């Protein structure tokens, strides 16, 4: 069953079209990354599904039903920037989250503050927090009451490297417990490490969507080298017609359609041509390279 279904969503800001006829499904139990460069429409999309923005056309369904406030109460969300009452402490801000959403309790507030390592500063005013602490509080608010669905917009924004790693581990752990996480990010590394599914946006258009392994890893790359690199290069050019060969000083890369590389066959082909390989490595295509390719950057 789909947690969220988008149907032909479009949104314009004056003459600028932020989203163009967007449609895709987000399956239950996944970590779904909405990936795209700045200005691709990621935050606009999340704002629409959280009813902060109104779509010009199209609609969305949470668990097969049109979006309602009651559904939003069950979703933990962090949108764009941490939005809290600057004169209130972390605890009092989370009391407001609890009062509106009905998620969590007094004990749950302490628990989530401990989880994001903000418990020691729980009674300090929000206005005294650093950017990283504000982000941690926003994550705590989203986690309050252990919601089954989380919508997180750039969740590691403003966090230090340790904080980023902690939040990633937290998201992976939550996903293992069955939570569905919808996450927008422009950090490829983050998406690669955390997400199971991805949608790539560019200038408001959906470029592609699906399982991370299907979308982002569609080429096999085999790296080889030998003592005589010239002979090796001459040999592999005749190995197969459907491969692309790139060469630098120390190694040659054979780029082949996904699932067609056979290391033993390559090794034996080279050996039969009188070349002994001293390096043979299968590599996945890097997400970054794939992302640039998809978005034509």
């Amino acid at each position, binding site marked *: 069953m789909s947690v969220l279904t988008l149907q032909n969503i479009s949104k314009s800001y004056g003459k600028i079209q932020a989203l163009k006829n967007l449609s895709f499904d987000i399956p239950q139990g996944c970590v779904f990354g909405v990936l795209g460069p700045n200005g691709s429409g990621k935050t606009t999309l999340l*704002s629409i599904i959280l*009813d*902060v923005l109104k779509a010009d056309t199209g609609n969305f369904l949470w668990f097969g039903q049109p979006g309602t406030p009651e559904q*939003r109460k069950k979703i933990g969300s962090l949108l764009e920037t941490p*939005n809290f*009452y600057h004169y209130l402490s972390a605890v009092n801000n989370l009391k*407001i989250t609890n009062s509106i959403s*009905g998620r969590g309790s007094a004990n749950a507030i302490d628990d989530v503050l401990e989880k994001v390592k903000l418990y020691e500063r729980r009674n300090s005013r929000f206005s005294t927090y650093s950017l990283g602490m504000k982000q941690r509080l926003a994550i705590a608010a989203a986690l309050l009451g252990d919601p089954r669905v989380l919508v997180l917009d750039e969740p590691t924004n403003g966090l230090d490297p340790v904080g980023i790693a902690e939040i990633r581990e937290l998201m992976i752990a939550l996903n293992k417990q069955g939570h569905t996480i919808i996450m927008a990010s422009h950090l490829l590394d983050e998406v690669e490490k955390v997400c199971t599914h991805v949608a790539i946006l560019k200038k408001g258009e959906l470029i592609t969507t699906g399982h991370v392994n299907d979308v982002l890893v569609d080429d096999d790359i085999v790296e080889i080298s030998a003592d005589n690199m010239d002979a090796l290069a001459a040999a592999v050019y005749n190995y197969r017609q459907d491969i692309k060969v790139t060469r630098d000083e120390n190694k040659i890369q054979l780029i082949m359609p996904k699932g067609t590389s056979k290391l033993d066959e390559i090794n034996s082909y080279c050996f039969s041509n009188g070349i002994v390989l001293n390096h043979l490595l299968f590599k996945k295509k890097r997400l970054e390279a794939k992302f640039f390719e998809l978005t034509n950057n």
Partner: protein
Amino acid sequence: MFTIARTEWLKIKKYPAFWWVMGITALTYPGINSILLYQYYDLIEKQNAAGQVVKALLGNPFALPEAWKTVAYFSSIFVFIPAIVIIMLITNEYTYKTNRQNIIDGWSRKDFMTAKLMDVLILSIIVTILYTLVALVIGIANTTKAPSAKWTMAYYIGLFALQTFSQLSLAFLVGLLVRKSFIALAIFAFYFIMLEPIASNLIRVKLHSDIGRFFPLNISHKLIPRPAFIGRFDEKAYQATLDAVKYHIGYTLILIVLTWAFCFWINNRRDL
């Protein structure tokens, strides 16, 4: 509804600016009336002929039941003080984007606006209670008549509440439209103190038209006529002002409904 009220209380109860302005309001209402009372006694206690004439002309506007009207009139001038809180309560939501967080957390846009309507209503009630206490204390302290007459003009409590709610609703509307605290405060103060009084007086003097009484603040301002002693300078015009009050109750109610209908409509249409 209880949850909405509780959430608003969580927002307000630790908001220092709210308590500061409420404190200033709590000092201003008794303060301004006490100053005028002091000046009144200072004037009538002069033993010369002028003092006696003033005493005969003014009567005692601070004795019950007239005190209900006198205190209401002078207190209503300072409605811009609680208006500061109302404007800050809505503009802060936009400044810190907490309005969008409230929606994200599960309120509907209607819930959000209902919460703000409750803020304005509760503040109007607090200010009205303050006015009632000031009028009662000053009135009782200056009254020598029989107890039965003391409450005959107590309906000014209702008129004061209606006027306060109407004018604070307009302050809220300015905050909702402008969204920036200081700009909204400046616009409301300028309109309240300068623009509307000058415009309505100019129209009255230059164009000989009474259309100014239908200006947004004047509609409810006419609910509480000036104290009776001022009316003695032109009895006919003063009686007309008193007669117009019942119509202005209707106009004010219509204005309040229109103001809030517009607030709900605009909040529903707007991207947050």
